[in-house]
Protein backbone atom coordinates (compact mmCIF):
# COMPACT_ATOMS: atom_id res chain seq x y z
CA UNK A 1 0.00 0.00 0.00
CA UNK A 2 2.84 2.34 0.91
CA UNK A 3 4.61 1.52 -2.34
CA UNK A 4 1.50 2.36 -4.29
CA UNK A 5 1.31 5.73 -2.54
CA UNK A 6 4.90 6.53 -3.44
CA UNK A 7 4.29 5.61 -7.07
CA UNK A 8 1.22 7.79 -7.06
CA UNK A 9 3.45 10.80 -6.36
CA UNK A 10 6.56 9.72 -8.21
CA UNK A 11 5.00 9.14 -11.63
CA UNK A 12 3.46 12.64 -11.92
CA UNK A 13 6.69 14.23 -10.64
CA UNK A 14 8.73 12.35 -13.25
CA UNK A 15 6.25 13.31 -15.95
CA UNK A 16 6.46 17.01 -15.00
CA UNK A 17 10.25 16.92 -15.06
CA UNK A 18 10.32 15.21 -18.45
CA UNK A 19 7.98 17.86 -19.84
CA UNK A 20 10.15 20.62 -18.33
CA UNK A 21 13.25 19.08 -19.88
CA UNK A 22 11.60 18.97 -23.28
CA UNK A 23 10.51 22.59 -23.02
CA UNK A 24 14.02 23.73 -22.09
CA UNK A 25 15.61 21.75 -24.92
CA UNK A 26 13.19 22.95 -27.57
CA UNK A 27 13.36 26.58 -26.48
CA UNK A 28 17.16 26.44 -26.59
CA UNK A 29 17.12 25.16 -30.16
CA UNK A 30 14.60 27.80 -31.18
CA UNK A 31 16.55 30.66 -29.63
CA UNK A 32 19.84 29.70 -31.20
CA UNK A 33 18.42 28.55 -34.52
CA UNK A 34 19.63 25.53 -36.41
CA UNK A 35 22.51 27.04 -38.28
CA UNK A 36 24.67 25.78 -41.06
CA UNK A 37 28.38 26.44 -41.03
CA UNK A 38 28.07 29.27 -43.55
CA UNK A 39 25.38 30.98 -41.48
CA UNK A 40 27.72 31.38 -38.58
CA UNK A 41 29.00 34.83 -37.90
CA UNK A 42 32.73 35.09 -38.38
CA UNK A 43 35.12 37.94 -37.86
CA UNK A 44 35.85 39.58 -41.18
CA UNK A 45 38.67 42.00 -41.70
CA UNK A 46 38.99 44.18 -44.75
CA UNK A 47 36.03 42.63 -46.49
CA UNK A 48 34.09 44.15 -49.35
CA UNK A 49 31.43 46.59 -48.24
CA UNK A 50 29.29 47.85 -51.04
CA UNK A 51 27.26 50.37 -49.13
CA UNK A 52 28.49 52.85 -46.65
CA UNK A 53 24.93 53.84 -45.91
CA UNK A 54 22.02 51.73 -44.79
CA UNK A 55 18.63 53.28 -45.40
CA UNK A 56 16.08 52.25 -42.87
CA UNK A 57 18.65 51.32 -40.24
CA UNK A 58 18.42 53.66 -37.30
CA UNK A 59 20.81 52.31 -34.69
CA UNK A 60 24.21 53.91 -34.40
CA UNK A 61 23.79 56.09 -37.50
CA UNK A 62 25.08 59.62 -37.02
CA UNK A 63 22.53 61.29 -39.29
CA UNK A 64 18.90 60.67 -39.96
CA UNK A 65 17.55 61.87 -43.29
CA UNK A 66 13.81 62.31 -43.20
CA UNK A 67 11.61 62.67 -46.26
CA UNK A 68 8.20 64.19 -45.63
CA UNK A 69 5.34 65.72 -47.56
CA UNK A 70 2.52 68.04 -46.64
CA UNK A 71 -0.02 65.24 -47.21
CA UNK A 72 0.02 61.46 -47.48
CA UNK A 73 -2.47 61.36 -50.32
CA UNK A 74 -2.96 63.52 -53.39
CA UNK A 75 -5.43 63.62 -56.22
CA UNK A 76 -4.21 63.54 -59.83
CA UNK A 77 -3.25 67.08 -60.86
CA UNK A 78 -2.81 68.22 -57.27
CA UNK A 79 0.41 69.94 -56.21
CA UNK A 80 2.43 69.21 -53.10
CA UNK A 81 5.82 69.69 -51.54
CA UNK A 82 8.45 67.20 -50.39
CA UNK A 83 11.06 68.13 -47.80
CA UNK A 84 14.33 66.29 -47.21
CA UNK A 85 15.58 67.11 -43.73
CA UNK A 86 18.74 65.95 -42.01
CA UNK A 87 19.40 65.77 -38.27
CA UNK A 88 22.46 64.44 -36.47
CA UNK A 89 23.13 62.97 -33.05
CA UNK A 90 26.62 64.49 -32.78
CA UNK A 91 28.40 67.76 -33.50
CA UNK A 92 30.16 67.43 -36.85
CA UNK A 93 32.00 69.48 -39.45
CA UNK A 94 30.88 68.61 -42.94
CA UNK A 95 32.88 68.81 -46.18
CA UNK A 96 30.25 67.65 -48.62
CA UNK A 97 26.72 66.34 -48.92
CA UNK A 98 25.64 64.53 -52.07
CA UNK A 99 21.90 63.92 -52.07
CA UNK A 100 20.05 61.74 -54.54
CA UNK A 101 16.30 61.20 -54.10
CA UNK A 102 14.70 58.51 -56.24
CA UNK A 103 11.23 59.08 -57.69
CA UNK A 104 9.10 57.91 -60.59
CA UNK A 105 8.77 60.66 -63.22
CA UNK A 106 5.75 58.91 -64.74
CA UNK A 107 3.81 59.40 -61.49
CA UNK A 108 5.15 62.76 -60.29
CA UNK A 109 6.32 65.91 -61.96
CA UNK A 110 9.05 67.47 -59.82
CA UNK A 111 10.42 71.01 -60.01
CA UNK A 112 11.36 74.12 -58.07
CA UNK A 113 14.11 72.85 -55.80
CA UNK A 114 15.11 74.97 -52.81
CA UNK A 115 17.84 74.46 -50.22
CA UNK A 116 18.69 75.50 -46.68
CA UNK A 117 20.39 78.90 -46.66
CA UNK A 118 23.04 77.47 -44.40
CA UNK A 119 24.22 75.22 -47.22
CA UNK A 120 26.50 76.51 -49.99
CA UNK A 121 25.10 76.87 -53.48
CA UNK A 122 25.05 73.35 -54.93
CA UNK A 123 27.94 72.54 -57.25
CA UNK A 124 25.32 70.64 -59.20
CA UNK A 125 21.58 70.28 -58.80
CA UNK A 126 18.98 68.92 -61.16
CA UNK A 127 15.70 67.10 -61.41
CA UNK A 128 16.65 64.27 -63.74
CA UNK A 129 13.63 62.81 -65.47
CA UNK A 130 16.13 60.66 -67.40
CA UNK A 131 17.26 58.86 -64.23
CA UNK A 132 14.27 59.51 -61.96
CA UNK A 133 16.46 61.34 -59.48
CA UNK A 134 16.43 64.66 -57.70
CA UNK A 135 20.11 65.58 -57.35
CA UNK A 136 21.93 68.14 -55.22
CA UNK A 137 25.65 68.17 -54.49
CA UNK A 138 26.94 70.55 -51.84
CA UNK A 139 30.69 71.05 -51.61
CA UNK A 140 31.87 73.18 -48.69
CA UNK A 141 34.91 75.23 -49.70
CA UNK A 142 35.51 76.63 -46.21
CA UNK A 143 38.60 74.87 -44.82
CA UNK A 144 36.79 74.39 -41.51
CA UNK A 145 33.82 72.71 -43.15
CA UNK A 146 30.16 73.33 -42.38
CA UNK A 147 29.48 73.05 -38.63
CA UNK A 148 26.36 71.07 -37.73
CA UNK A 149 25.26 70.72 -34.14
CA UNK A 150 23.72 67.63 -32.65
CA UNK A 151 19.96 67.80 -33.03
CA UNK A 152 20.11 70.65 -35.53
CA UNK A 153 17.70 70.37 -38.46
CA UNK A 154 19.07 71.04 -41.92
CA UNK A 155 16.86 71.26 -44.99
CA UNK A 156 18.88 69.43 -47.63
CA UNK A 157 16.27 70.17 -50.24
CA UNK A 158 12.62 70.74 -50.80
CA UNK A 159 10.84 70.49 -54.10
CA UNK A 160 7.41 70.91 -55.54
CA UNK A 161 5.70 67.92 -57.05
CA UNK A 162 2.54 67.34 -59.03
CA UNK A 163 0.70 64.03 -59.08
CA UNK A 164 0.29 62.77 -62.64
CA UNK A 165 -1.53 59.46 -62.36
CA UNK A 166 -3.13 57.21 -59.73
CA UNK A 167 -0.60 55.05 -57.95
CA UNK A 168 1.14 54.41 -54.65
CA UNK A 169 4.77 55.39 -54.86
CA UNK A 170 7.72 56.03 -52.58
CA UNK A 171 10.31 58.76 -52.69
CA UNK A 172 13.52 57.42 -51.20
CA UNK A 173 17.20 58.16 -50.78
CA UNK A 174 19.41 56.54 -53.42
CA UNK A 175 22.41 54.65 -52.08
CA UNK A 176 24.00 54.02 -55.47
CA UNK A 177 22.88 50.44 -55.94
CA UNK A 178 21.49 51.15 -59.39
CA UNK A 179 24.33 53.48 -60.39
CA UNK A 180 27.39 54.01 -58.23
CA UNK A 181 27.59 57.69 -59.17
CA UNK A 182 24.24 58.24 -57.45
CA UNK A 183 25.22 57.30 -53.90
CA UNK A 184 23.97 59.70 -51.26
CA UNK A 185 26.92 60.62 -49.10
CA UNK A 186 27.87 62.91 -46.24
CA UNK A 187 31.63 63.44 -45.89
CA UNK A 188 33.28 64.69 -42.74
CA UNK A 189 35.79 67.52 -42.71
CA UNK A 190 39.27 66.52 -41.63
CA UNK A 191 38.87 62.76 -41.85
CA UNK A 192 37.48 62.88 -45.41
CA UNK A 193 35.41 59.82 -44.48
CA UNK A 194 31.73 59.20 -45.11
CA UNK A 195 29.42 59.61 -42.13
CA UNK A 196 26.75 56.98 -41.63
CA UNK A 197 23.10 57.84 -41.92
CA UNK A 198 19.69 56.26 -42.01
CA UNK A 199 16.70 57.38 -44.02
CA UNK A 200 13.01 56.69 -44.46
CA UNK A 201 10.80 55.99 -47.45
CA UNK A 202 8.10 58.53 -48.16
CA UNK A 203 5.12 56.67 -49.57
CA UNK A 204 2.48 58.78 -51.27
CA UNK A 205 -0.89 57.65 -52.51
CA UNK A 206 -2.24 59.28 -55.66
CA UNK A 207 -5.94 58.88 -56.36
CA UNK A 208 -8.27 59.91 -59.19
Amino acid at each position, binding site marked *: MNQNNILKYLVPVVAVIVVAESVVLISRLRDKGITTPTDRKVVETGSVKNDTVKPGVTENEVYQINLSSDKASYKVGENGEVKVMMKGNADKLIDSVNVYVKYDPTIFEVNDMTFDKKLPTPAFSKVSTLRGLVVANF*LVSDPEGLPLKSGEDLLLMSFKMKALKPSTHSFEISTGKEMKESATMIVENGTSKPITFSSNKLTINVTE
Partner: protein
Amino acid sequence: MKNKSINIIFGILMVVALIGGVMLASQNQETRRGAYFAGTKMLIMPEEIAAKTGKDLVAQLFLDTENGAKLSALDTFVCYDKGLELNADNPENQVVLNTDALKDLVDVTLENVGDKPCVRIVALAGATMKPANLKSGMIRVLNIKFKATEVADGNITILADKTKVGGYNPAAGATDNSLKVGTVTGAKYSVTIGDIVQCNSDSDCADNEYCDSATKQCKPTTGAADDTYLKFKMAFYGVRGDAMCADAAKLPLSVTVRSNDGVVKNYTGIVSTKTNTSGDVGIYEVKMRLNGFKVRNNIAVFVKGPKSLQVKYGVNNQSSYYSVAGGELSGLTSEESSTPMFDFTKYPLLSGDVTGPNNSQDGVVDGLDFSYIKTESIKRTEVASGGYMLADINGNCKMESQDVANMMLSLSVKQGQLY
Protein backbone atom coordinates in the same frame (compact mmCIF):
# COMPACT_ATOMS: atom_id res chain seq x y z
CA MET B 1 9.91 0.04 7.07
CA LYS B 2 13.05 -0.95 5.26
CA ASN B 3 11.21 -1.10 1.94
CA LYS B 4 9.76 2.33 2.55
CA SER B 5 13.22 3.85 3.07
CA ILE B 6 14.58 2.20 -0.08
CA ASN B 7 11.67 3.54 -2.09
CA ILE B 8 12.21 7.07 -0.82
CA ILE B 9 15.96 6.93 -1.56
CA PHE B 10 15.26 5.48 -4.98
CA GLY B 11 12.70 8.17 -5.72
CA ILE B 12 15.10 10.93 -4.64
CA LEU B 13 17.81 9.49 -6.88
CA MET B 14 15.46 9.50 -9.86
CA VAL B 15 14.48 13.08 -9.23
CA VAL B 16 18.14 14.13 -8.95
CA ALA B 17 18.97 12.27 -12.15
CA LEU B 18 16.18 13.97 -14.02
CA ILE B 19 17.13 17.40 -12.71
CA GLY B 20 20.63 16.65 -13.94
CA GLY B 21 19.17 15.77 -17.30
CA VAL B 22 17.41 19.13 -17.45
CA MET B 23 20.68 20.90 -16.69
CA LEU B 24 22.50 18.95 -19.39
CA ALA B 25 19.78 19.73 -21.89
CA SER B 26 20.20 23.41 -21.18
CA GLN B 27 23.84 23.27 -22.22
CA ASN B 28 24.90 24.04 -25.81
CA GLN B 29 25.04 20.77 -27.61
CA GLU B 30 26.65 20.27 -30.99
CA THR B 31 24.90 17.38 -32.62
CA ARG B 32 24.81 18.49 -36.24
CA ARG B 33 26.63 16.67 -38.98
CA GLY B 34 29.28 18.77 -40.69
CA ALA B 35 29.90 21.06 -37.72
CA TYR B 36 33.29 22.66 -37.08
CA PHE B 37 35.77 20.53 -35.22
CA ALA B 38 38.39 23.26 -35.00
CA GLY B 39 39.11 26.79 -36.14
CA THR B 40 41.58 28.55 -38.39
CA LYS B 41 42.85 32.02 -39.06
CA MET B 42 43.56 33.22 -42.59
CA LEU B 43 46.01 35.88 -43.62
CA ILE B 44 47.75 37.44 -46.59
CA MET B 45 51.47 37.94 -46.25
CA PRO B 46 53.34 40.18 -46.30
CA GLU B 47 51.05 42.73 -44.75
CA GLU B 48 52.36 45.47 -47.04
CA ILE B 49 53.38 44.67 -50.59
CA ALA B 50 55.01 46.99 -53.11
CA ALA B 51 55.56 46.52 -56.82
CA LYS B 52 56.38 48.48 -59.93
CA THR B 53 54.04 48.71 -62.91
CA GLY B 54 54.58 45.88 -65.35
CA LYS B 55 55.96 43.62 -62.63
CA ASP B 56 54.42 40.84 -60.54
CA LEU B 57 52.97 41.55 -57.13
CA VAL B 58 52.95 38.35 -55.12
CA ALA B 59 50.50 37.81 -52.27
CA GLN B 60 50.93 34.71 -50.10
CA LEU B 61 47.86 33.10 -48.57
CA PHE B 62 48.42 31.48 -45.18
CA LEU B 63 46.20 29.47 -42.86
CA ASP B 64 46.89 29.09 -39.17
CA THR B 65 44.88 26.10 -37.90
CA GLU B 66 44.08 25.65 -34.22
CA ASN B 67 44.71 22.62 -32.03
CA GLY B 68 46.81 20.85 -34.63
CA ALA B 69 43.89 20.59 -37.05
CA LYS B 70 45.02 19.33 -40.44
CA LEU B 71 44.06 21.11 -43.66
CA SER B 72 42.48 19.11 -46.47
CA ALA B 73 40.49 21.55 -48.60
CA LEU B 74 40.03 25.25 -49.31
CA ASP B 75 37.40 27.24 -51.17
CA THR B 76 38.01 30.97 -50.81
CA PHE B 77 37.56 34.38 -52.40
CA VAL B 78 40.44 36.85 -52.52
CA CYS B 79 39.55 40.37 -53.63
CA TYR B 80 41.72 43.26 -54.73
CA ASP B 81 41.52 46.88 -55.77
CA LYS B 82 42.78 48.86 -58.72
CA GLY B 83 46.25 48.53 -60.14
CA LEU B 84 46.30 44.73 -60.05
CA GLU B 85 45.23 42.32 -62.72
CA LEU B 86 44.78 38.60 -63.22
CA ASN B 87 44.53 37.17 -66.71
CA ALA B 88 40.85 36.55 -67.39
CA ASP B 89 41.58 33.74 -69.83
CA ASN B 90 44.04 31.76 -67.69
CA PRO B 91 43.89 32.99 -64.10
CA GLU B 92 45.07 29.59 -62.87
CA ASN B 93 48.49 30.39 -64.29
CA GLN B 94 48.84 33.13 -61.71
CA VAL B 95 47.93 30.99 -58.71
CA VAL B 96 50.81 28.83 -57.51
CA LEU B 97 49.76 26.13 -55.06
CA ASN B 98 52.07 24.94 -52.32
CA THR B 99 51.77 21.26 -53.15
CA ASP B 100 53.17 20.29 -49.77
CA ALA B 101 49.92 21.61 -48.33
CA LEU B 102 47.33 20.95 -51.04
CA LYS B 103 47.93 18.92 -54.18
CA ASP B 104 45.10 19.77 -56.54
CA LEU B 105 44.16 23.22 -57.81
CA VAL B 106 40.57 22.41 -58.71
CA ASP B 107 39.29 25.78 -59.89
CA VAL B 108 40.41 29.38 -60.29
CA THR B 109 37.78 31.80 -61.54
CA LEU B 110 37.48 35.57 -61.61
CA GLU B 111 34.26 36.94 -60.14
CA ASN B 112 33.08 40.36 -59.08
CA VAL B 113 31.76 40.61 -55.54
CA GLY B 114 29.96 43.92 -55.25
CA ASP B 115 32.09 46.21 -57.36
CA LYS B 116 35.34 44.46 -56.49
CA PRO B 117 37.26 42.05 -58.65
CA CYS B 118 37.89 38.80 -56.82
CA VAL B 119 39.44 35.44 -57.57
CA ARG B 120 37.78 32.29 -56.31
CA ILE B 121 40.25 29.53 -55.59
CA VAL B 122 39.30 25.93 -54.88
CA ALA B 123 42.04 23.48 -53.88
CA LEU B 124 42.08 20.00 -52.37
CA ALA B 125 44.61 17.75 -50.71
CA GLY B 126 43.69 15.06 -53.20
CA ALA B 127 43.34 11.33 -52.84
CA THR B 128 47.06 10.68 -52.81
CA MET B 129 47.72 12.63 -49.62
CA LYS B 130 47.51 10.54 -46.49
CA PRO B 131 46.21 12.12 -43.27
CA ALA B 132 49.67 11.88 -41.74
CA ASN B 133 51.03 14.14 -44.49
CA LEU B 134 48.39 16.83 -44.16
CA LYS B 135 49.69 20.11 -42.78
CA SER B 136 48.62 21.87 -39.62
CA GLY B 137 49.49 25.08 -37.80
CA MET B 138 50.82 27.95 -39.90
CA ILE B 139 50.58 26.79 -43.51
CA ARG B 140 51.47 28.68 -46.66
CA VAL B 141 48.77 27.44 -48.99
CA LEU B 142 49.39 29.32 -52.19
CA ASN B 143 50.81 32.40 -53.88
CA ILE B 144 48.82 34.71 -56.11
CA LYS B 145 50.96 36.46 -58.70
CA PHE B 146 49.06 39.62 -59.60
CA LYS B 147 50.28 41.73 -62.50
CA ALA B 148 50.83 45.31 -61.34
CA THR B 149 49.27 47.32 -64.13
CA GLU B 150 48.90 50.89 -62.93
CA VAL B 151 49.94 53.22 -60.18
CA ALA B 152 47.58 52.63 -57.26
CA ASP B 153 47.24 51.86 -53.59
CA GLY B 154 44.77 49.27 -52.40
CA ASN B 155 43.95 46.25 -50.31
CA ILE B 156 43.95 42.53 -50.89
CA THR B 157 41.19 40.97 -48.80
CA ILE B 158 39.84 37.52 -48.02
CA LEU B 159 36.06 37.13 -47.92
CA ALA B 160 35.54 35.08 -44.76
CA ASP B 161 31.82 34.62 -45.29
CA LYS B 162 32.44 33.04 -48.68
CA THR B 163 35.29 30.85 -47.52
CA LYS B 164 35.10 27.19 -46.59
CA VAL B 165 38.01 25.30 -45.12
CA GLY B 166 38.05 21.54 -44.78
CA GLY B 167 40.21 19.51 -42.45
CA TYR B 168 40.93 15.97 -41.31
CA ASN B 169 39.13 15.11 -38.08
CA PRO B 170 41.07 12.35 -36.30
CA ALA B 171 38.15 11.35 -34.07
CA ALA B 172 36.93 7.84 -34.92
CA GLY B 173 33.74 7.96 -36.95
CA ALA B 174 33.70 11.74 -36.97
CA THR B 175 31.58 13.40 -39.61
CA ASP B 176 32.56 16.95 -38.67
CA ASN B 177 35.32 17.97 -41.04
CA SER B 178 35.04 21.76 -41.35
CA LEU B 179 37.39 24.34 -39.87
CA LYS B 180 35.68 27.48 -38.67
CA VAL B 181 37.22 30.55 -40.29
CA GLY B 182 37.98 33.06 -37.57
CA THR B 183 40.05 36.16 -38.01
CA VAL B 184 41.06 36.99 -41.57
CA THR B 185 43.73 39.56 -42.27
CA GLY B 186 44.35 41.12 -45.65
CA ALA B 187 47.28 43.10 -46.98
CA LYS B 188 47.89 46.58 -48.27
CA TYR B 189 49.67 47.11 -51.53
CA SER B 190 51.22 49.97 -53.40
CA VAL B 191 52.01 50.01 -57.10
CA THR B 192 54.43 52.66 -58.26
CA ILE B 193 55.61 53.59 -61.69
CA GLY B 194 58.04 51.08 -63.14
CA ASP B 195 61.55 51.88 -64.16
CA ILE B 196 61.78 53.36 -67.62
CA VAL B 197 64.63 51.97 -69.66
CA GLN B 198 65.98 54.27 -72.35
CA CYS B 199 67.01 52.55 -75.57
CA ASN B 200 68.21 53.04 -79.10
CA SER B 201 67.32 49.63 -80.48
CA ASP B 202 65.43 46.47 -79.52
CA SER B 203 68.67 44.87 -78.33
CA ASP B 204 68.76 47.35 -75.46
CA CYS B 205 65.48 45.98 -74.12
CA ALA B 206 64.37 42.75 -72.44
CA ASP B 207 63.18 39.75 -74.46
CA ASN B 208 59.52 40.66 -74.10
CA GLU B 209 60.05 44.32 -74.88
CA TYR B 210 60.81 46.45 -77.88
CA CYS B 211 62.39 49.87 -78.28
CA ASP B 212 59.70 52.45 -79.06
CA SER B 213 61.13 54.76 -81.71
CA ALA B 214 59.07 57.75 -80.65
CA THR B 215 59.93 57.75 -76.97
CA LYS B 216 63.23 55.87 -77.06
CA GLN B 217 61.89 53.76 -74.22
CA CYS B 218 61.56 50.01 -73.82
CA LYS B 219 57.93 48.94 -73.90
CA PRO B 220 56.26 45.54 -73.68
CA THR B 221 56.00 43.76 -77.00
CA THR B 222 52.40 43.91 -78.00
CA GLY B 223 50.84 41.70 -80.53
CA ALA B 224 51.29 40.49 -84.03
CA ALA B 225 52.22 42.66 -86.98
CA ASP B 226 48.67 42.66 -88.33
CA ASP B 227 47.18 43.93 -85.08
CA THR B 228 45.73 47.42 -85.33
CA TYR B 229 47.99 50.35 -84.54
CA LEU B 230 46.38 53.21 -82.60
CA LYS B 231 47.66 56.77 -82.37
CA PHE B 232 45.99 59.69 -80.66
CA LYS B 233 46.82 62.88 -78.85
CA MET B 234 44.97 63.95 -75.77
CA ALA B 235 45.00 66.31 -72.79
CA PHE B 236 44.18 66.33 -69.09
CA TYR B 237 41.74 68.99 -67.96
CA GLY B 238 43.56 71.92 -66.32
CA VAL B 239 47.05 70.59 -67.05
CA ARG B 240 49.06 73.18 -68.92
CA GLY B 241 51.93 72.58 -71.30
CA ASP B 242 54.37 74.01 -68.76
CA ALA B 243 53.07 71.90 -65.86
CA MET B 244 56.21 70.61 -64.20
CA CYS B 245 54.63 67.77 -62.22
CA ALA B 246 52.66 66.18 -65.02
CA ASP B 247 55.27 64.00 -66.68
CA ALA B 248 53.78 61.41 -69.00
CA ALA B 249 55.62 58.67 -67.11
CA LYS B 250 53.76 59.65 -63.92
CA LEU B 251 50.41 59.52 -65.69
CA PRO B 252 50.12 56.01 -67.15
CA LEU B 253 46.88 55.47 -68.99
CA SER B 254 44.31 52.75 -69.23
CA VAL B 255 43.13 52.47 -72.84
CA THR B 256 40.16 50.37 -73.87
CA VAL B 257 39.11 49.87 -77.48
CA ARG B 258 35.70 48.60 -78.50
CA SER B 259 34.45 47.77 -81.99
CA ASN B 260 30.83 48.21 -82.94
CA ASP B 261 30.43 44.45 -83.13
CA GLY B 262 31.49 44.02 -79.52
CA VAL B 263 35.23 43.21 -79.62
CA VAL B 264 36.77 44.80 -76.52
CA LYS B 265 40.39 44.98 -75.45
CA ASN B 266 41.87 46.76 -72.47
CA TYR B 267 45.47 47.92 -72.15
CA THR B 268 46.88 49.32 -68.95
CA GLY B 269 50.09 51.06 -67.98
CA ILE B 270 50.24 52.89 -71.31
CA VAL B 271 52.81 55.66 -71.08
CA SER B 272 52.22 58.56 -73.43
CA THR B 273 54.68 61.19 -74.63
CA LYS B 274 54.25 64.84 -73.72
CA THR B 275 54.89 66.89 -76.82
CA ASN B 276 54.89 70.47 -75.56
CA THR B 277 56.37 72.39 -72.66
CA SER B 278 54.37 75.60 -72.95
CA GLY B 279 50.87 76.77 -73.72
CA ASP B 280 47.53 76.49 -72.02
CA VAL B 281 47.05 72.81 -72.77
CA GLY B 282 49.55 70.03 -72.27
CA ILE B 283 49.44 67.67 -75.24
CA TYR B 284 50.16 63.97 -74.72
CA GLU B 285 50.60 61.52 -77.59
CA VAL B 286 49.88 57.81 -77.44
CA LYS B 287 51.22 55.35 -79.99
CA MET B 288 50.46 51.72 -79.37
CA ARG B 289 49.88 48.43 -81.08
CA LEU B 290 46.59 46.90 -80.00
CA ASN B 291 47.55 43.38 -79.03
CA GLY B 292 44.93 40.96 -80.35
CA PHE B 293 42.70 43.68 -81.80
CA LYS B 294 42.40 43.66 -85.58
CA VAL B 295 39.38 45.91 -86.19
CA ARG B 296 40.22 48.94 -88.35
CA ASN B 297 36.94 50.88 -88.57
CA ASN B 298 34.12 52.14 -86.38
CA ILE B 299 35.76 51.80 -83.01
CA ALA B 300 35.48 53.73 -79.78
CA VAL B 301 38.43 54.45 -77.49
CA PHE B 302 38.05 54.81 -73.71
CA VAL B 303 40.90 56.53 -71.91
CA LYS B 304 41.48 56.85 -68.16
CA GLY B 305 44.32 58.48 -66.28
CA PRO B 306 45.53 57.83 -62.75
CA LYS B 307 43.55 60.78 -61.36
CA SER B 308 40.99 61.16 -64.10
CA LEU B 309 37.63 59.77 -64.99
CA GLN B 310 37.33 57.51 -67.99
CA VAL B 311 36.33 59.38 -71.15
CA LYS B 312 34.92 57.87 -74.28
CA TYR B 313 36.18 59.08 -77.63
CA GLY B 314 34.07 58.15 -80.63
CA VAL B 315 35.09 60.64 -83.30
CA ASN B 316 38.23 62.44 -84.40
CA ASN B 317 38.50 66.05 -83.15
CA GLN B 318 35.88 65.30 -80.52
CA SER B 319 35.04 68.39 -78.48
CA SER B 320 32.15 67.27 -76.28
CA TYR B 321 30.57 64.27 -74.57
CA TYR B 322 30.10 61.41 -77.04
CA SER B 323 26.79 59.95 -75.99
CA VAL B 324 26.14 57.71 -78.97
CA ALA B 325 26.55 53.94 -78.70
CA GLY B 326 29.58 52.52 -80.50
CA GLY B 327 32.22 54.62 -82.18
CA GLU B 328 33.13 56.15 -85.53
CA LEU B 329 36.94 56.15 -85.42
CA SER B 330 37.96 54.61 -88.72
CA GLY B 331 40.77 54.22 -91.20
CA LEU B 332 43.21 52.63 -88.76
CA THR B 333 45.94 50.39 -90.15
CA SER B 334 48.50 48.00 -88.73
CA GLU B 335 51.36 50.39 -89.50
CA GLU B 336 52.53 53.19 -87.24
CA SER B 337 53.35 55.30 -90.28
CA SER B 338 49.98 55.02 -92.01
CA THR B 339 47.44 54.81 -89.19
CA PRO B 340 45.78 58.19 -88.49
CA MET B 341 46.65 60.34 -85.50
CA PHE B 342 43.33 61.08 -83.81
CA ASP B 343 43.02 64.39 -81.99
CA PHE B 344 41.18 64.23 -78.65
CA THR B 345 42.79 67.32 -77.14
CA LYS B 346 39.64 69.43 -77.43
CA TYR B 347 37.88 67.20 -74.95
CA PRO B 348 40.39 66.60 -72.13
CA LEU B 349 40.11 63.86 -69.53
CA LEU B 350 38.04 65.06 -66.58
CA SER B 351 40.12 65.10 -63.42
CA GLY B 352 39.29 64.42 -59.81
CA ASP B 353 38.92 60.68 -59.24
CA VAL B 354 41.57 60.37 -56.54
CA THR B 355 39.91 58.24 -53.88
CA GLY B 356 36.81 56.22 -53.01
CA PRO B 357 35.00 54.38 -50.23
CA ASN B 358 37.88 51.93 -49.76
CA ASN B 359 40.55 54.62 -49.99
CA SER B 360 41.20 53.68 -53.59
CA GLN B 361 39.99 55.27 -56.79
CA ASP B 362 36.50 54.13 -57.71
CA GLY B 363 35.89 55.71 -61.13
CA VAL B 364 33.59 58.34 -59.64
CA VAL B 365 34.09 62.01 -58.77
CA ASP B 366 32.13 62.74 -55.61
CA GLY B 367 32.30 64.27 -52.15
CA LEU B 368 35.08 61.91 -51.07
CA ASP B 369 37.36 63.15 -53.84
CA PHE B 370 36.43 66.73 -53.05
CA SER B 371 37.20 66.35 -49.36
CA TYR B 372 40.52 64.62 -50.08
CA ILE B 373 41.70 67.28 -52.54
CA LYS B 374 40.46 70.10 -50.32
CA THR B 375 42.25 68.67 -47.29
CA GLU B 376 45.47 68.35 -49.27
CA SER B 377 45.13 71.84 -50.74
CA ILE B 378 44.86 73.33 -47.26
CA LYS B 379 48.27 71.86 -46.46
CA ARG B 380 49.78 73.85 -49.36
CA THR B 381 52.18 71.00 -50.02
CA GLU B 382 54.73 71.54 -52.75
CA VAL B 383 57.07 69.12 -54.49
CA ALA B 384 60.02 69.70 -56.76
CA SER B 385 59.71 69.73 -60.53
CA GLY B 386 59.14 66.21 -61.79
CA GLY B 387 57.44 65.16 -58.56
CA TYR B 388 54.00 63.68 -58.18
CA MET B 389 51.05 64.26 -55.88
CA LEU B 390 47.78 62.43 -56.36
CA ALA B 391 45.71 65.48 -55.48
CA ASP B 392 47.77 67.88 -57.61
CA ILE B 393 45.12 67.92 -60.31
CA ASN B 394 46.73 70.55 -62.53
CA GLY B 395 50.24 69.13 -62.13
CA ASN B 396 51.89 72.40 -61.14
CA CYS B 397 53.78 70.82 -58.23
CA LYS B 398 51.77 72.53 -55.49
CA MET B 399 48.47 71.99 -53.76
CA GLU B 400 46.20 75.02 -54.06
CA SER B 401 42.63 76.12 -54.55
CA GLN B 402 42.93 75.66 -58.31
CA ASP B 403 43.08 71.91 -57.77
CA VAL B 404 39.83 72.06 -55.82
CA ALA B 405 38.24 74.25 -58.48
CA ASN B 406 39.25 71.82 -61.24
CA MET B 407 37.75 68.94 -59.31
CA MET B 408 34.50 70.82 -58.74
CA LEU B 409 34.25 71.61 -62.41
CA SER B 410 34.84 67.95 -63.26
CA LEU B 411 32.06 66.92 -60.92
CA SER B 412 29.68 69.43 -62.42
CA VAL B 413 30.49 68.43 -66.00
CA LYS B 414 30.25 64.71 -65.26
CA GLN B 415 26.97 65.08 -63.43
CA GLY B 416 25.61 67.10 -66.33
CA GLN B 417 26.43 64.17 -68.60
CA LEU B 418 24.87 61.60 -66.28
CA TYR B 419 21.67 63.40 -65.36
